[in-house]
């Protein structure tokens, strides 16, 4: 039990099943990689690797938070809107008179404040859902609708263009040739995987998702766990928002994070975390996001139009979830 992220009991070998589900997504990823090595021109290059990893980093960061939320049996539709708020706030801070007068402090605040604010909004989601016993899909729908509006109101709907190398290190910087946001992504994935497997909080998340009533009777602080999970999802979304505006050198609250909630949910689903809660596969989510990204890259690199790639993506999501469910019932 200690090294497998599942608290499900009463079924024969759920951990083995979880391992095979993850293995299936991984196998698909390896097949796709092999196909690319054989077919796609110029695939084996550091540039290809960097392009794919930088594109997938924000989705993975958001999906990690989403994985934890889904593991409690919830869902977070607000992540895209929260990204827009964080992305709108950061330039407002370092472009403000204060930020210009104190560049170092301004840049620091531009990192910390937006992520903190968005984390608090995430905690608000959790509070709203637990305090009023609202279904997560409705509870976070409120922030989905209101959040993008808040981002637009903050910037009056205007595009904010900037050039700030210190701040943009999070999106454009490199450490030993590795894009910085890829490092951020790996750190977050590692932290979350460790949390789920090795910490009490991780056990609590799975307990709440597995059987909320039993968890409450066993003394798990259900409401607090949920508030934290949504707050973490908010923090991840905030970080992703900063990465996106840094890469673009501009912030457009109308567009930042648009549709991200569904991309993240798709990555979690393909990664094998069931939507009924009680199990969380953070590494699976990483593999799921990589699989979706590489699939799109493969299709585009081989001359398939982007619109057709969307259709294939839909088929892959349905197929992945279908095969996982067969694996679960078998």
């Amino acid at each position, binding site marked *: 039990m200690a090294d497998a992220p599942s608290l499900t009991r009463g079924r024969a070998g759920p951990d083995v099943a979880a391992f095979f589900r993850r293995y299936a997504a991984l196998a698909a990823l390896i097949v796709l990689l092999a196909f690319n090595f054989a077919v796609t021109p110029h695939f084996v290059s550091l540039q290809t690797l960097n392009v794919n990893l930088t594109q997938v980093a924000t989705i993975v960061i958001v999906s990690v938070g989403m994985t934890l939320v889904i593991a409690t049996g919830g*869902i977070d*539709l607000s992540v895209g809107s929260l990204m827009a708020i964080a992305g709108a706030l950061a330039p407002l801070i370092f472009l403000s008179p204060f930020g210009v007068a104190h560049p170092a402090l301004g840049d620091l605040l531009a990192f910390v404040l937006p992520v903190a604010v968005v984390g608090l909004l995430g905690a608000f989601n959790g509070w*709203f859902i637990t305090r*009023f*016993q*609202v*279904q997560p*899909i*409705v*509870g976070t*729908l*409120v*922030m*989905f*609708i*209101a*959040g*993008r*509006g*808040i981002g*637009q*109101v903050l910037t*009056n*709907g205007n595009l904010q263009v900037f050039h700030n190398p210190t701040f943009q290190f999070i999106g454009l910087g490199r450490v030993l040739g590795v894009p910085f946001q890829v490092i951020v992504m790996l750190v977050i994935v590692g932290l979350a995987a460790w949390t789920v497997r090795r910490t009490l909080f991780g056990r609590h998340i799975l307990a709440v998702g597995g059987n909320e*009533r039993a968890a409450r009777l066993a003394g798990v602080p259900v409401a607090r766990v949920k508030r934290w999970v949504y707050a973490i999802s908010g923090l991840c979304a905030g970080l992703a928002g900063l990465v996106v505006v840094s890469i673009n050198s501009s912030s457009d609250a109308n567009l930042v994070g*648009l*549709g991200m909630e*569904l991309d993240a*949910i*798709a990555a979690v*689903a393909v990664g094998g975390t069931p*939507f009924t809660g009680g199990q969380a596969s953070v590494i699976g989510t990483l593999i799921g996001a990589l699989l979706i990204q590489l699939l799109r890259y493969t299709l585009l690199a081989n001359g398939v*139009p*982007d*619109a*057709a*790639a*969307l*259709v*294939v*993506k*839909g*088929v892959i*999501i*349905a197929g992945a*979830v*279908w095969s996982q*469910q067969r694996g679960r019932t078998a």
Partner: protein
Amino acid sequence: MSLESAVPAGPARPGAIAWAAQQRVLIALAALIAFGALRYDHFLGAYNVLSVLRYNSMFALTSLGMAFVIMTAGIDLSVGTTAACASVVSALLSSYGLVPGLLGGLGVGVAVGAINGFMVTRMRILPFIATLAGMLMASGTGLLLAHNQSVSVSYDTAFIWLGQGDVLGFPVPAWIALAAYVYGSVVLNFTSFGRYVLAVGGGEDASRLMGLPVDRVVFWTYVQSGVFAGLAGVILAAQFGAGQPAEGVGWELFSIAAVVVGGTLLTGGVGSVATTLAGVLLLGLIFNVLNFENGLGWISLSAYWQSVVRGVFLMAVVMAGSGAARRALRTA
């Protein structure tokens, strides 16, 4: 454990909660209309009323299909991109006349709805994921057919009448939406299909044991949702003179919000067609009132505030519903 599963299955209580919520939404709509009528000169003027009806008829249609799906405890994320794809197909067919354009749009709806229904009932994929896949497929197909740009409709045929015409002084889209809601109301309240929809949402296993054709009922709610979304797409193309493959983003969540505001529970089993329409009009009129308020000149709120106001409004509705739920539980 048996106690826990018995609580939500009790038929009277969720029904009572939903009924209270449905009364509140009608009162809120009446209050908002009265507020607007008293405060602004032209709020009830023909121009304003007709343009609100013309524009919101598309959301009314997608929300109606969504309401039926939600009553079976499902969800349909594909309505927005289905409408977008349908608008492209109907625009492409509009040069052959009104009927081919209309049938093309409806055909897209039937196809997407059938794929969704197949994934949910045969492949046993959760509705959220299944219709997310359907959403991507419809979006990609629309973009492919339109070559990533909007497709102009033909003005040589009667097609644009579907979006821009008037009958007895009211816009054709409003008549279409009205007919759809009359149909929905009759189906829900007076046909066995409607009763089955509520029964399946109330308890799928129990319905199956009673011998109801659960899979068939669920399948048809998705097809029906697709048809209404396709119809919305036809109106979209006819109203704005172009099939728009990139439209429809966020329509699904707006529709879910309208259904929730209308007092239909996402847990399924209870719902109402008439108050879904009230939910659509409430969310639509909030934007309208905001515009009028800006016109008075006392305040100047940008159009971006409408999302914030809508979100807060949805929150208030959910909180009020939660209060009613607690009261119902106390008295029980």
